[in-house]
């Protein structure tokens, strides 16, 4: 479905990605995780063609992702960033339909699709008349998700989508997001730094460090069969509130 081969990216003197190869499984959720600066965000942006790698290539189905093909391919990829990435000058509705309207969809077709999406994302339809500053963080993220799903893409790429939310809203949205992914059966790539979130979503977890993949597998694989100390330390570093009471 989506794969990168031998990708390297160097910023000034820092190596963000180091000859990395990864194939994303279709209809499954792949989570990219790792400490800050491990290259996970660079990797997801390379997948959608926002950044060009220094070496290597990216394939989406049978097409190579290049500056020439990226524009078309992006219509088949949905992209969501932290806080939704909504355009402040457009209200929720106009944010969601921006691209479809540009592609010439009729207004009634837009309305039908938006109605479907509000049900899917459990977003109150009358809230779409509001501007981003008038929405809460969770609402902005739901609108951002609707925008990414508007053209019914094959792949959904999410870069720390829940990073800026408070815990209860985050948990609610996690539940809803997982339902949506299962309902739609889409290929999902998600970046997070939260091991709990990675375990919650990830059919496949890709643990990265210094631009390389350290271990790839299910949560079970990582916990029970860690390849090295770093994996153990990374997993154990995520301390839940109950850990304190255990001591």
């Amino acid at each position, binding site marked *: 479905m989506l794969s990168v081969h031998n990708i390297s990216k160097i910023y000034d003197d820092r190596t963000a990605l180091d000859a990395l190869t990864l194939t994303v499984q279709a209809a499954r959720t792949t989570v990219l995780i790792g400490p800050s600066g491990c290259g996970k965000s660079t990797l997801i*942006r390379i997948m*959608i063609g*926002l950044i060009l790698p220094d070496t290597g290539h990216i394939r989406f189905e049978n097409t190579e992702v290049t500056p020439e093909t990226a*524009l*078309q*391919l*992006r*219509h088949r*990829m949905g*992209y969501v*960033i*932290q806080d939704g*990435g*909504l*355009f*402040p*000058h*457009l*209200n929720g509705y106009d944010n969601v339909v*921006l*691209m479809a309207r*540009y592609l010439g969809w009729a207004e009634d077709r837009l309305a039908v699709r938006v109605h479907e999406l509000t049900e899917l994302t459990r977003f109150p339809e009358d809230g779409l008349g509001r*501007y*981003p*500053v*008038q929405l809460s963080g969770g609402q902005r993220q739901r609108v951002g998700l609707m*925008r990414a799903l508007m053209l019914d893409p094959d792949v959904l*790429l999410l870069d720390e989508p829940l990073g800026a939310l408070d815990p209860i809203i985050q948990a609610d949205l996690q539940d809803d997001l997982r339902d949506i992914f299962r309902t739609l059966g889409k290929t999902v790539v998600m970046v997070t730094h939260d091991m709990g979130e990675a375990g919650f979503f990830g059919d496949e977890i890709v643990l990265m460090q210094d631009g390389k993949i350290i271990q790839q597998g299910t949560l079970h694989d990582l916990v029970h069969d860690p390849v090295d100390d770093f994996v153990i330390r990374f997993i154990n570093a995520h301390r839940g509130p109950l850990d304190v009471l255990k001591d």
Partner: protein
Amino acid sequence: MIYTYSALRTPHSALKGLCRCLLVCCLWVSPVIAQPVTIGSKNFTENVILGEVLRHLAQHAGQEAIHRQQLGGTQILWEALLRGDLDAYAEYTGTLTQEVLADLKLENNEALEEALKERGILMSRPLGFNNTYALGMKPGLADSLGIIKISDLRDHPDLIFAFGNEFLDRGDGWPTLRNRYGLPQTNVSGLDHDLSYRGLESGDTHVIDLYSTDAEIAYYKLRVLEDDLNHFPVYNAIIVYRKDLMQRAPQVVDAFLQLEGRIPESDMVAMNARAKIDKIPEVRIAANFLASTLDIHIDVQEETRWDRLMKHTGAHLYLVIISLSAAILIAVPLGIVSACLPNFGQVVLAVVGVIQTIPSLALLVMMIPVVGIGGPPAILALFLYSLLPIVRNTYAGLTDIPGPLKESAQALGLPPAARLRLVELPMASRTIIAGIKTSAVINVGTATLGAIIGAGGFGQPILTGIRLADNGLILEGAIPAAVLALLAQGVFEVIERLFVPRGLRLKAQG
């Protein structure tokens, strides 16, 4: 209709003016021969009166005539005459031999006439009076220090001198006067000639330059210091006019030449006194003179305050609207390109930044050799001045859009032009409009200087008010200029409301 100004041009010629402005960087625009006879005058009362006399004479000879009053200084008029923007003005022989053509070291009037002819300029014979320079003091101070001639000043190095700006730098002015007499004074400043009398009166200054026909000499009973080393040459008033005026309007030249030898010094001093002391409009003084001296009777219609306000408003708006519109049309795309191409952008921002540092008066005068006098050079200068705030704000508005939002637009699959139109420009609109608003306010203010190069506008009554020491006239220009600046601000606030998307004007909740 008494005065004719660029403000009253037809829309067609306004458009032509704009085109000239915009094309001037790549094209040499040959002087357009205006149909009416165009007369100029320097920025002092006597010359304005003579300009009015010439205009009356041209009109009486059946020719449409324009008088561009109070153009900055001799150099501006001389350049304009050579270019053909002016057909005639009243000049002084000493100014030509000692300043304009000083390099030629002309010995006499015949040599001067020859030198002018080579440049396509003809001169009349002297009009009858000599308006030479002199130095003047208040008699009380002069008596107490025992000063009667210029060389007496050597013994009083602490005296404060204030000279007209032109005199301060002229070849026949202060630099050579100081050398000739060996004057030791160092506290020497420049100011508008018409203000220097007030400085003398208030005691802020002790010695000023005089024009020997100034009415104030008698009015203030000033001591005129004797030029005991004969430094100042003779400044016989003459008319200089373009050779081609002989073909175009010979009857006008004939009319002008009637003035030869007809204006004795006493008449000129009296006319100056009527303008400066009795506050009679120059247009009427000139008409009265022609009636009494040449038996030419001219029906003088004086403008009301309202007429003047309308005329100046029209001229001012003409300058501001054309220059600002052109600036918006050029600067917004320039800002967009600068934001897209960072290296090019740095060059553009540096260039428009440098333009902004040129003093406005200098920029206005620098435009004269390129596009002549009147509206076009003022519009070109105002256009250049208006660029920086718009380019800079367009650039800043676009480059300040957060990276993740730009990437979100890209990730949607919008092509670059659509991203600019649908996302980036709307998001930058508030900053861009703020830049245009800044430009508009600066433009309205700077346009008042346009009067110095014959562009009219609210600067005209300010200039005249300074010359005639008439605060009412100064306010007649200053108040509408301030109101217009506020109005421009208000108009752009409305535009901001209309064009800045609502989402950008809302405050975040909680």
